[in-house]
């Protein structure tokens, strides 16, 4: 990131955390288990000392898992996380315990993050006890100190979490995270469970504490506006992959990745006269067990590249085709029972006859030019015969573009360390903006 060195605010200091090709898969032990969920699917990140790094994404994007893997609350499937030069994915025993002091977490849900059978004092003191910091008396003093730093009073020491409001409980959680004087704190949606009125106060507190203790934050959120307010840099995550990363203002002002664009346009804009088009996110994310083979976003992307030979096909038709493919994909995820399999053999399979209905809906008033019609007819037949997998493959063959087939690379955009994960940054394709406007 040589370009970034020209800048001179505190965010371009040395790198504190360097994540390389990190993967976290769930549930792949056992021969007969279904394919693993790729919660984090090859992530590279650099978090600089002293910055607030935002990580946004819809639920299920893997952002929390990424945060937890950085803290060794989850064991990475592969890849490295180097913290100040040490690869922490392989730390064990007392080394791991010693390292843990450097990295702490504040959780989303203040109800669940505090053990409500312990007093607030015991909760905040527990990390100190676990690491044998100082004498009994010193620990108490330190807890009192922490409580007042986060805006609580000393006499709260002997109260139980039940006696506090959500915002106060979150303050307790913050005090606990700071007890061991960590360098790095993961803030896992720290305000999204709180009332709006309280959110701002907690954010301000977090900013003050960062200043005071030179903290590095990883701020995980699904609320884009909060991130814009507090973060220096942001990464946008989708299905286990970082789609775009860059400096906050720049990324918000001028998103270059189709996913980021869609996500940002989903925020209600304060100015109704803003004429930039609202890109809507059609559909739901695909199952993480069965992610697209090419770009993760290809099933929903408004800027998806069309394959050669279909330039003449109208926008509506193409839309209908993409949605039809979605339906077929859904079908392939359904496991057939024995009875259905027997029926399929005997040619009596009728479970999927409703596909006709769906096709009629989709292509209602939409022309089906000959270039597409054959493939569609074949696919419908296959689905009805109980072979949606064949249909899916045929459609992939026929209508699949580079977005369906190949994983994009992370392309450098601009000169401030911005990266975007999309084929459209390659020379041969139109850029994202014009593709969406089409």
């Amino acid at each position, binding site marked *: 990131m040589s370009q970034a060195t020209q800048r001179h605010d505190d965010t371009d200091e040395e790198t504190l955390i360097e994540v390389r090709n990190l993967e976290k898969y769930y549930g792949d*032990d056992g021969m007969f288990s279904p394919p693993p969920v790729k919660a984090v699917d090859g992530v590279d990140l650099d978090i600089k000392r002293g910055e607030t790094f935002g990580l946004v*994404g819809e*639920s*299920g*994007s*893997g*952002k*929390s*898992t990424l945060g*937890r893997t950085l*803290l060794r*609350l989850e064991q990475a499937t592969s890849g490295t996380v180097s913290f100040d030069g040490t690869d922490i994915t392989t730390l064990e025993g007392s080394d*791991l*315990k*010693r390292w*843990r*002091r450097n*990295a*702490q*977490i504040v*959780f*989303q*849900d203040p*109800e*669940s*993050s*505090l*053990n*409500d*059978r*312990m*007093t607030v004092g015991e909760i905040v003191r*527990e*990390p100190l006890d*676990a*690491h044998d910091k100082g004498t009994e*008396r010193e620990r*108490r*003093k330190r807890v*009192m100190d922490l409580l007042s730093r986060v805006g609580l009073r*000393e*006499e709260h*020491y*002997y*109260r*139980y979490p*039940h*006696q506090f409001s959500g915002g106060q409980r979150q303050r307790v*959680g913050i005090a*606990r995270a700071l*007890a*061991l004087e960590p360098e790095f704190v993961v803030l896992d949606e720290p305000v999204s469970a709180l009332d709006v009125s309280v959110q701002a106060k907690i954010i301000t507190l977090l900013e003050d504490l960062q200043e005071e203790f030179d903290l590095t934050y990883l701020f995980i959120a699904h609320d884009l506006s909060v991130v814009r307010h507090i973060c220096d840099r942001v990464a946008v995550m989708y299905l286990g992959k970082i789609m775009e990363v860059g400096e906050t203002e720049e990324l918000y002002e001028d998103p270059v990745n189709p996913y980021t664009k869609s996500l940002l346009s989903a925020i209600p804009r304060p100015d109704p006269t803003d004429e930039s088009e609202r890109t809507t996110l059609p559909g739901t994310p695909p199952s993480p067990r069965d992610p697209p083979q090419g770009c993760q976003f290809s099933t929903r992307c408004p800027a998806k590249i069309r394959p050669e030979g279909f330039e003449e096909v109208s926008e509506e038709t193409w839309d209908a085709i993409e949605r039809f493919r979605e339906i077929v994909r859904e079908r392939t995820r359904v496991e057939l029972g024995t009875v259905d399999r027997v029926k399929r053999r005997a040619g009596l399979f009728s479970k999927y006859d409703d596909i006709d209905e769906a096709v009629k809906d989709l292509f209602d008033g939409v022309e089906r030019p000959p270039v597409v019609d054959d493939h569609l007819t074949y696919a419908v037949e296959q689905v009805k015969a109980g072979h949606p997998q064949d249909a899916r493959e045929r459609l992939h063959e026929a209508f699949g573009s580079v977005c369906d087939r190949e994983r994009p690379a992370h392309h450098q955009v601009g000169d401030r360390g911005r990266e975007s994960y999309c084929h459209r940054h390659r020379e041969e394709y139109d850029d994202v903006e014009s593709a969406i406007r089409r």
Partner: protein
Amino acid sequence: MEEPTSRFDEDSTLRSRLEADPEPALRWAAVMAALALVQIGSLLGGLLSILDAAVVGVTAIFDVLFGLVGLTGASAAVVDVQSALSGAVTTARDAAEGLPTLLSRETIPNQGHLASADGPWVDTFLGLEPALAWAVRVLLIVGYSLFTFYWLFRGWLVFRAHYRQADWTPTDDMIDRLRDHRWGQFGIFVLALFLIMALFGPALGPTTVSQNIVSPYSHEVTYFNADAGAVETVAAGDANFNSKSKGAGDQNVGPMTYDNFNRFHPFGTLPNGRDLFTFMMGGARITLIVAGLAIGLSALIAGGLAMVSAFYGGNIDLTLLTTADGIVSVPRLLLLIMISAIFANHWLAGVLDGGFLLALIFAFTGWPFLWRAVRGPALQVAQEEWVDAAESFGQPPRTIMRKHMFPYITGYLLVYASMSTGGIIVGLAALSFLGNGLGITPPTPAWGRAVSLGQSYVSGPSWHISFIPGAMIVVLVTGLNALGDGIRDAIDPESAGGDDDEAAAGGGA
């Protein structure tokens, strides 16, 4: 929120708080001391009995372990240590029991005899008739004990009101809810009654186990012989022989009657002429010790394994599941019979008259049920973020389980433990009912044996032999269930609340 700063001081200790305001504590302690002093002899005796049992239990476990790994020498040494320690404790206990005790058979005797055909009574308390003397003693002991239980609870209230630093804890709510729970209180009351029977059994009976049941021929009974018109003496065994309840009109000593030897029988006599009430009190002690040991061990195993299951999940959980299913699939009674047969001549079968072995068997066959019951709650608490938090600052798994999971499953453990204790008590009675070397070794009293002895007289005048023990078992089991209900409602006022938590814990990416 009231302002608690007056009580707040970061460095204050319990002692300094006591010194600052000693009055409530002193008032409580004075009463407590008086209560203890009155019963000092039996109190110490009781404590030493428990100590004795503990010594036997702990050494037995070591002995079994050494035996398993083949260290016969070490195992023999353990037995030596055991008998030495146990001997010392027994001596101390005998000494302690020699101390004066107010509510004892010596101060309020009920065993006396008529001086002539129409009185007066000799040797009884204030010359009252034995039934009355006995009733006075029983009432005093029960009253005393219940009051003592209450006063202990009162001690906690005093601590809570005056000396605790937190003005509120989650336990307060549970206790307060239990205070409004009549059915649960019924359970506590029943359990307290049976505990009293077990603790003060020797003082409650109209006679004692050793006089009347274990060695009746070394004790004598003085009575007024109506036929001869004179006061005579006879061995208790002979007196028993002539006080049998065998269902016939002339061979029956029913509840609340005297036999021909001026002896009062609150529950009547057994077919062999022994006093049923004394028998039941002796049975209460062994039943509660065995059931308590068994359920305690079960709960310990089940709780520990449930947390391991929930914390590690995956293959460990699966292994436990298989093991538990395996144990459950063997019929319990069959297993009990088999193991009893195998160990029939082992010295272990002699500890607590066979009760210790039974407790072990019940514990090792019973934990899977408890484990299944608390695995759910354990899984739920393992999902809580505070567990992750503890992990994130490097708390070792053991500490996490103890500090962050155990407090949440103890409640459930208590609920299910109190409910399954009923099963153990019934099982124990069933074994003794079957007899043939199963269950508690005779002549030590066991409830099941009483039921069994009386079963052929159920429909005659000697109905009491089976009915009273049976009814007592029913009452105790019902009481334990009530207690379980009470605790459940206390820890979980509306079970609906738990579902929300689960949904919240399951959500989030």
